């Protein structure tokens, strides 16, 4: 099956920042992304869990974008400005994508 090389960027960031990150991705013309819920975790700022939480402040989300390799640097730069001061983690992986028109 024919596949295409791409990069899969996963940005784990605080839930209250989701909107801003979405706006920045859209401003950077990254219109393809998916958001996965994160229900708990641990980091330098301690361990947490979404259970029973009412506010957004405690939670995080994982935003995943699959993009063409040549667009990676642009994406990381726009994203960096947002995440720089925030808790969370950004990872990049190589992947193959089934349909080229999809990203």
């Amino acid at each position, binding site marked *: 099956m024919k596949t295409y090389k791409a990069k899969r960027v996963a940005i784990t960031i605080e839930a209250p920042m989701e909107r801003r990150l979405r706006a920045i991705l859209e401003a950077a013309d990254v219109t393809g992304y998916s958001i996965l819920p994160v229900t708990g975790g641990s980091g330098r700022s301690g361990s947490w869990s979404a259970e029973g939480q*009412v506010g957004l*402040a405690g939670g995080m989300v994982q935003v995943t974008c699959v993009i063409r390799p040549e667009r990676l640097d642009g994406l990381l730069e726009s994203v960096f400005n947002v995440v720089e001061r925030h808790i969370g983690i950004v990872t990049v992986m190589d992947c193959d994508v089934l349909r080229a028109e999809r990203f």
Partner: protein
Amino acid sequence: MDGFFALALGNLSSPLILSFVLGVAAALGRSDLVFPEAAAKALSIYLLFAIGMKGGVSVAEHGIDLRLGSTVLAGIVLSAALPLIAFKLLGIMTKLDRVNAAAVAAHYGSISIVTFVAGTSVLESAGIVSDGFMVAVAAAMEAPAILSALWLISRGGSETRMDSDLWREILLNGSIVLLVGAFAIGMVVGKEGMADVESFFVAPFKGALCLFLLDMGLVAGRGLRRSRGVLTPGLMAFGLLMPIIGAGAGALAGLLIGLPTGSIFLLMVLGASASYIAVPAAMRVAVPEADPGIYLTLSLGITFPFNLTLGLPLYLGFARAIGGG
């Protein structure tokens, strides 16, 4: 003082407080009891809507009171001024840096609606009336404290992310919209319209609040367990002293406006309570450098339980002493 102990005991043995205590105990004992996040959020929407609507209906009943305006104004001033006091106090009592101190201070200017709701329950049990518009005052006190804190931070030279988006997020945050919106709905539909939905929003209210407080206890207890080391004695002392100062400021404002006892009490409760929903979310966005471990634990783990258990009877005793009733 006898009255206080009777009140405190009565308060401590109400299903509401006991549910909270159960939650704290379960979390400290590391039970696997958990409340689904979606259920906690749904319950909070229900409580905010119900309390807002009841306030609106009550205002529709009694007409717009001249004191509404002055009390809302007083609330805004309290919310804006208390962070300045809190900030000073934190400078004296703790070693927090400027950014963390301002972030904590913001929480104490703003309010906890659940503490407010528990306060109205205490009033009801005591058979004391209060003004329906106090709900609007509560809504008005959510945001000003955030601005004060951001001003404190920027004055110190640190950068905050304060753009128009954040303004909108703060002013239109979910709990303000629900409180104000449901208040307006209550004012429009009045007692008659409320009758239709009473068996959902009024009758089961206290029971639903029990479950919500159970969840709050679980979250507070978990926070306490995880925060060993974060809460220094100085911080803890602040978490117990600041609500009393806030309550005092509320009492003063209430007296000056000439509110009735019930409303003085509620203004004290608003002054005493610390936010744990709206302000933390705003701080995450505007001041990401501040440590949520400090402000969340202090507000939810120390001040909220204190207000709920000892604070409420204390404030009520005081409000009665100065306001009569």
